[in-house]
């Protein structure tokens, strides 16, 4: 049952800018089993999206993946995605793994029809002929809940609403039944009712196609609903990693605790929501010690000098904290 699909070890991605090097991802590691959903959460700028783009190898200059290992268990055995040539990687993208982006309003080409764009991955990877691709596109559109799909193939993106465009993006992403689907804040640009529909759709399709999903979000509600595993990121580090229930019910890392504390609850009305004092560190500086240490209320001396790194604290639950690790 627990068959490994993706294993990321010590992934490091940086952006060399004139103002200095931005260390966006600093040694992220996680594992993802087949058919499972991993939620990556964290505040803006913590490296969630860069991690996702790194997995897809879509980091463009001035960024580069500095180090790491991305073992993908595909049809032809285990491959390190970082060692693939750009051409081989093109075979993987859209075929074995695909991605849904944040803003459906700009992710579709305005001058091409919806049909043409859905058929794109089918033609590239499945080498389908026009008619077959068209029939498949209609099926996909129907599957993601676009009414009158056959008629709408000839429509342009501007004739679709935001929610419908995101459905089209989902259809494109699952067109070749990928093993891994990465959704980078797929609901952020949508309004609440549509958000729920898109999440449900991803959830259904994941079971239908047996796809593993990495969902990146800062919406903890989305994670609670769909994810099995959660990775909490802070300043380019994974600070806590564990099954969704444990992360939500018994968070161990001070940052995760603070995050959970800042969610409004339905049945209690605190005077004010908890906030985390201070601001995240600048990613251009070399971080010594624990990245969260300056804002942490539980810090001890050791935190300032030594980065704890992820250590196991329960089965399948790791946490990067000197204090939590020794409780």
């Amino acid at each position, binding site marked *: 049952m627990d068959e490994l699909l993706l294993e990321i070890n010590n992934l490091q991605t940086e952006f060399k800018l004139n103002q200095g090097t931005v260390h966006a991802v600093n040694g992220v590691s996680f594992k993802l089993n087949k058919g499972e959903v991993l939620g990556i959460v964290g505040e803006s700028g913590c490296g969630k999206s860069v991690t996702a783009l790194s997995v897809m190898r879509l980091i463009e200059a001035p960024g580069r993946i500095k180090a790491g290992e991305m073992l993908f268990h595909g049809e032809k055995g285990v491959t390190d995605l970082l060692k693939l040539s750009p*051409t081989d990687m093109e075979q993987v993208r859209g075929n074995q793994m695909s991605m849904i982006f944040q803003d459906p309003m700009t*992710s*579709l*080409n*305005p001058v*091409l029809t919806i049909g043409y764009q859905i058929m794109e991955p089918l033609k*590239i990877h499945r080498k389908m002929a026009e008619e077959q691709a068209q029939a498949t596109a209609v099926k996909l559109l129907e599957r993601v809940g676009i009414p009158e799909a056959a008629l709408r193939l000839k429509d342009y993106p501007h004739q679709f609403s935001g929610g419908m465009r995101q459905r089209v993006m989902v259809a494109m992403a699952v067109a070749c039944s990928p093993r891994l689907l990465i959704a980078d804040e797929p609901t952020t640009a949508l309004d609440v009712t549509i958000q729920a529909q898109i999440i449900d759709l991803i959830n259904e399709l994941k079971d239908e196609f047996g796809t593993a999903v990495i969902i990146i979000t800062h919406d903890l509600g989305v994670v609670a609903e769909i994810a099995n595993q959660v990775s909490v990121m802070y300043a380019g580090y994974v600070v806590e990693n564990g099954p969704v229930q444990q992360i939500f019910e018994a968070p161990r890392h001070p940052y995760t605790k603070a995050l959970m504390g800042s969610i409004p609850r339905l049945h209690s009305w605190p005077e004010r929501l908890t906030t985390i004092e201070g601001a995240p560190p600048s990613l251009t500086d070399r971080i010594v010690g624990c990245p969260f240490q300056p804002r942490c209320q539980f810090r001890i001396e050791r935190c300032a000098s030594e980065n704890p790194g992820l250590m196991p604290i329960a089965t399948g639950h790791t946490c990067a904290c000197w204090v939590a690790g020794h409780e």
Partner: protein
Amino acid sequence: MAVSATTLTPAKVKKSSSLGMAWRRFLSRKWAVAAGIFILLEIMIAIFAPVIAPYDPYYSDYTATYQKPNAKYLLGTDDMGRDVLSRIIYGTRVSYSVGVLSQVCIVIIGLPIGAIAGLIGGWVDYVTMRVIDVLSSIPGMLLYILLMVALGGGSGNVFQALSNIILAMSLTGWIGIARLVRGQVLSLKESDFVRAARSMGADNTWIIKTHILRNALTPVVISMTLGVPGAMFGEAGLSFLGLGIAPPTPSWGQMIGIYQSFARTWPHLILYPALVLAVTMLAWILLGDGVRDALDPNIRM
């Protein structure tokens, strides 16, 4: 913005292609349509000039010089007794060949240069842009004049003169298109849909072909249409200065240039060619605006 009722009927929208939609948007702009009809008319006039012109534009009737508009000579006659109307009709040929052909040449030169600079980037882009900066720091008219003098001006036969003018304009005019295409390519390269296509496994050739060039083409078409009046005006300016089409071949600019010396005594001579030139330019600008509104798919977002 001005969306006619027909474009809103869902059943019709569904069956339409993008060109069909653009065509309907164009038709909903009355001034652009009027300008388009006017331009079509002028093109017909240019093609059928020998049939339409009442007189031979080269024939001098020295017994009837400087005539005011009358029943026999509708727009009067010039200093050599030639029919002004016939000369204006033949002048259409020069203006339209220069206007349209120079834009075609400009795109042929500018589009690949801009696209390559934008796509490759790095030092290729840097060098191209510096060359463009240097060229665009020289006033356009000055460059035309220098090039025309270097190329031998408008003397010799008409085709030689025309190709010299078009060459001079293309050698300076490609800058604008190259810059436009480069900017488009740069922003399209970073666009979300190109990234989305990459995430679907599309390779560079596919992305350039279907996503970048297709999107960059619309502004090029718009810029071509809007560039035509500029080129016509450039030809008129050169001919006015005596560097363009040499007499006796009539051209609007050249007629204005020659007739302006009689403007104090016979102002009607300069009036008609200037009026035709002005109205034609206005028509092209209105058409260009209409084409822009029709082709820009973002307008109804």
